[in-house]
């Protein structure tokens, strides 16, 4: 999932300054799971903003609404049946960067600002802790590396490792961090596939990565081309 973190409160307060009526728009998918922008976080942020602005004697009306996904047009368009979007001066979105942009596209006559900093694609390691696992490089090598991504985990992103900087399972770049290639070796050994360490992977095909990338599913190709 996409993992995000709320911006510092004062930054958010500055982003909404000058607005008299604000809609805080939450997203019920990834950012809800990582406790950054779901319904509960929207409620906390709304309370904080109301109190902080009241302390400054600023009369601001703040409403809140959380939809299923802000990265899907049909869910954003539903908002019109729930609130009068035109009444708001500003939409404060607690979605990831993708959700903020799509909300901004759909309501292109409204100022839409982000309340979060989108950080990475990752997994939940436990309650309240997430780690990055994927750089979305468009050229996955996990089949060769025991399901551990060297592009993400290795500080140097090496697809053939380890480098000379591995130190007792730790990385020379940051001794606190695990050496990705030690993790890969241990996993391959456990899988009985340690022979894969002897193969040399071809240079990473960075050219397959487009920016901004667009994917059209085969079944829908005719519709868009």
């Amino acid at each position, binding site marked *: 999932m996409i993992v995000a973190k709320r911006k510092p*409160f*004062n930054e958010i307060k500055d982003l909404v300054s000058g607005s008299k009526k604000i809609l805080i728009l939450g997203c019920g998918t990834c950012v809800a799971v990582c406790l950054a922008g779901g319904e509960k976080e929207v409620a*906390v942020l709304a309370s*904080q903003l109301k*109190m*902080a602005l*009241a*302390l*400054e*004697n600023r009369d601001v009306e703040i409403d809140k609404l959380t939809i299923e996904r802000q990265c899907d047009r049909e869910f954003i368009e539903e908002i019109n049946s729930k609130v009068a979007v035109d009444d708001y001066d500003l939409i404060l979105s607690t979605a990831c960067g993708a959700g903020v942009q799509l909300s901004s596209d759909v309501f292109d006559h409204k100022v839409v600002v982000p309340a979060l900093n989108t950080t990475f694609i990752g997994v939940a390691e436990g309650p309240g802790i997430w780690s990055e696992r994927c750089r979305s490089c468009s050229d996955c090598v996990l089949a060769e590396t025991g399901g551990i991504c060297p592009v993400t985990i290795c500080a140097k992103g090496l697809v053939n490792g380890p480098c000379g900087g591995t130190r007792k399972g730790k990385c020379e770049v940051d001794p606190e961090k695990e050496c990705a290639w030690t993790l890969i070796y241990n996993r391959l050994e456990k899988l009985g596939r340690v022979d894969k360490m002897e193969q040399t992977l071809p240079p990473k095909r960075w050219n397959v990565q487009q920016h901004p990338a667009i994917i059209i599913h085969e079944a829908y190709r005719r519709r868009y081309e």
Partner: protein
Amino acid sequence: MGDCHFLEGNLRAKERVEYTKSLLDEIGLGGDRLEMFHIGASDAPFFAKAVETMTNRAKELGPNPLRCETPVAEAA
């Protein structure tokens, strides 16, 4: 600490109270207005001390500015 009927419930509560205090600090209301005390069911003296601590603190901090009838900026 941690010796809770709900296993680790009081430790979780402690973390959440700390987080809530930080939210109050962020908005300028002050996290000192909120505190959590771990008090054993039979520890009346400590309960009384906790009440005294919070009473003194409330007096020191003054009324919640958001509940004052005078506008906050004027009161300041």
